[in-house]
């Protein structure tokens, strides 16, 4: 993702940015400041420029993080991700109208979504199963067909979807739950219009928003339950009509 | 602070105040032959808006002090003190005010306030005064004819 973002920003060699190397990191930071962020005047970038003397650079970088108001992140990856995000935001705000034409139908944007979340989970069950094993992938695909889970190029995402269905519909807790009755939610109604003339964008946006609202509702209900349980300990409402004459 | 007073020879002043027209609020207009009297009248006028003074009897007396930076400020703080006397302990409604110290060099007032604590059922409820304002405040001093007037808008 970081590479994609760097590429979008016009970094000359996005795939060569190796985060393992502090110097490489330093030069990427300098590139971002020089080309995109431009927080400092050219003269003020002196210390950030000293790629040959990393001690001075580190000093300048420390101050730069503060001036940039970057949240205190621990790793280089997090810091760089934040800075790239910041740079993109600035880039966008320079001329928002330029990006108006980008919508859900643009094929260039949807091409790459498969290849991302592969980096971290390589094995599961303490390394007993290699998730890229052909057999494993075939198993996931078969299970998906059985459960009517739509195809996704990344089988791991598909596996996640399968896990949710099993958990919510087939698990022992779900078996005893009553089926939901009533009218289905009319999510085409309401006062919000996402993008009336672009169903490709409108439809998924509405679904995403509903999912978000559902999870918020769950959180709010948990909060309310917590409040009520505290109330059982603290609540003791009283009135004393002697205090004020009420009515006549 | 509550102070002693004698009910003998207790005279109520004549009414020298009125309520003037104003958009959302009401303007108090008090007058008298001294500035002191105009201040006293203006204060009573405010209580007259909170209840009907005919129902109020004089049972106790409290003394208040007020200070300001100028004459308008003094009037403002004087009325603010009176409003406070009504809004919190002792919840006093005043029928008569008597300014015992009226120092226009240092802008200080000491005033004795005669009345009784507000009591629902006994005193009819009028309008609540939220605050005193400086808006269009006027203090008119006609020394030659011994005629003094004050105008204050109260927020209700």
């Amino acid at each position, binding site marked *: 993702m970081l590479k994609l973002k760097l590429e979008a920003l016009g970094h000359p060699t996005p795939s060569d940015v190796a985060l393992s190397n502090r110097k490489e990191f330093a030069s990427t930071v300098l590139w971002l400041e020089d080309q995109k962020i431009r927080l400092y005047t050219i003269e003020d970038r002196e210390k950030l420029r000293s790629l040959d003397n990393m001690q001075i650079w580190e000093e300048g970088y420390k101050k730069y993080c503060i001036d940039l108001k970057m949240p205190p992140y621990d790793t280089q990856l997090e810091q760089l991700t934040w800075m790239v995000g910041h740079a993109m935001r600035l880039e966008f705000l320079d001329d928002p109208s330029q990006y108006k034409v980008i919508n859900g139908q643009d094929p260039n944007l949807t091409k790459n979504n498969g290849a991302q979340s592969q980096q971290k989970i390589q094995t599961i069950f303490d390394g007993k199963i290699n998730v890229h094993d052909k057999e494993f992938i075939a198993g996931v695909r078969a299970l998906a067909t059985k459960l009517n889970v739509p195809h996704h190029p990344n089988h791991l995402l598909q596996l996640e979807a399968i896990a949710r269905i099993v958990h919510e519909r087939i698990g022992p807790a779900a078996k005893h739950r009553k089926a939901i009755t009533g009218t289905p939610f009319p999510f085409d109604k309401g006062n919000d219009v996402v993008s009336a003339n672009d169903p490709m964008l409108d439809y998924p946006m509405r679904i995403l928003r509903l999912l978000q609202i559902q999870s918020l509702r769950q959180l709010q209900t948990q909060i309310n339950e917590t409040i009520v349980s505290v109330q059982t300990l603290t609540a003791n409402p009283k009135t004393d009509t002697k205090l004020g*004459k009420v009515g006549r | 602070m509550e102070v002693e007073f004698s009910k003998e020879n207790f005279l109520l002043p004549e009414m020298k105040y009125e309520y003037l027209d104003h958009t959302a609020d009401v303007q108090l207009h008090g007058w008298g032959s001294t500035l002191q009297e105009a201040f006293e009248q203006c204060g009573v006028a405010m209580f007259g808006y909170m209840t009907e003074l005919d129902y109020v009897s004089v049972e106790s007396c409290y003394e208040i002090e007020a200070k300001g930076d100028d004459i308008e400020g003094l009037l403002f703080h004087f009325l603010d003190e009176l409003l406070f006397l009504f809004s919190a302990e002792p919840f006093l409604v005043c029928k008569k005010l008597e300014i015992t110290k009226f120092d226009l060099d240092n802008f200080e007032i000491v005033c004795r306030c005669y009345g009784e604590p507000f*009591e629902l059922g006994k005193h009819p409820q009028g309008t*609540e005064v939220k605050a005193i304002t400086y808006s269009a405040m006027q203090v008119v001093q006609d020394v030659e004819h011994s005629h003094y007037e004050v105008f204050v*808008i109260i927020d209700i």
Partner: protein
Amino acid sequence: MVVRPYVEELKYLEKINDHCWRIKKGFQPNMNVEGVFYVNSRLEKLMLEELKNSCRPGAVGGFLPGVKQIANVAALPGIVGRSIGLPDIHSGYGFAIGNMAAFDMDDPLSVVSPGGVGFDINCGVRLLRTNLYEKDVQPVKEQLAQSLFDHIPVGVGSKGIIPMNARDLEEALEMGMDWSLREGYVWAEDKEHCEEYGRMLSADPAKVSMRAKKRGLPQLGTLGAGNHYAEIQVVDEIYDKWSASKMGIEEKGQVVVMIHSGSRGFGHQVATDALVQMEKAMKRDKIETNDRQLACARINSVEGQDYLKAMAAAANFAWVNRSSMTFLTRQAFAKMFNTTPDDLDMHVIYDVSHNIAKVENHIVDGRERKLLVHRKGSTRAFPPHHPLIPVDYQLTGQPVLVGGTMGTCSYVLTGTERGMQETFGSTCHGAGRALSRAKSRRNLDYKEVLDKLEQIGIAIRVASPKLVMEEAPEAYKDVTDVVDTCHAAGISKKCIKMRPIAVIKG
């Protein structure tokens, strides 16, 4: 102040469309931004008449006309966007009532003004629903009105019946509705349906004078006087069935309870104290305003910060106050119908503040900026999906509660995206005065006013009957005109109309 003939003044005003007028720079001196106000043809006449009257030679007294006040606010340091007048605007202390203005928090010269909040800090409206219908309530209407009147302390000099000492007050000022929750006066769901969740975290009771606390303590849990009221209302019309059902309003005839009250003497004193402090700060920092009543201080100054913290405490006071009356209302209903508030489904639909200043993020000229938004006699109206509105209203937009005056109808509106862009997510708050109090007293007879209410089937209990004519519908702008203007201008959307069947007033 610039004195010009009326014809000259009109040159600075421009009608942009059927519902909106622009006030150009130069109408008042030093305007940093333009002004704007929303009116329909009837309200427009009232507005211009007021201006015309003030142009007569020799006109003295009280407040400047609303249009002038909007323009003076536009001249305050740090204001962004426009100084906005809502349809129910009428002149008030410094800021007109129904004026909203936003100030850039990142501009060191920006100001906060107590006059832009009002004396009754966090005056607002709360709406409770019930599962009762008009046919259930009509036969017992008089008893129910009396029962409410017996439960809720109203009018001048009334004292609260919820026992409180000085320490309780300190806690309530800091905690807002969380205090009411802890003590068990309200339900967890009430908090959820409250602006700011019923608590401003910036509150600091230490910044509040002893005098304000002494005025506040006996008055907690009281309705107050003036235009404050509690009303039993019936749903009269539903314009947006889908949004109404999200609020638990299913059909015409359903009974709801509206409570309109504020922070009582506590808030009034906080405002008074701040005005005195700010007069001094203005001299020190050399802040020039067009009108002495626009006392203000830089947001970053000690006075500015102290006021914001004390104001937040007053806002918390108001929420505890409305919550206490919610408790008393539920008790009254439960007793009357011999059941529990739970079984009557007496949930809070929403609780709005229409006298407050808040820090909010808005998009100005394509950039997100942190603003201090003053709303005086103006209600926040955020659009669907705004993160600061409750999850239950994410799809409908924030409910906006617009209270009518004694005997007239009230409305529930919802916030719109257009309002977010045009008015910083703000809309009207009520009817707005048209006649002065003294004029209403002269022209109307209180017995007639009461008889009239009775004739149209409204049970009324009022603490000071002789003052009801000041609050008679005739003394106000027509709330329907006000709401229709907001709807037509698109800054909020009509959802439900209610009419009263019983009124409890100070």
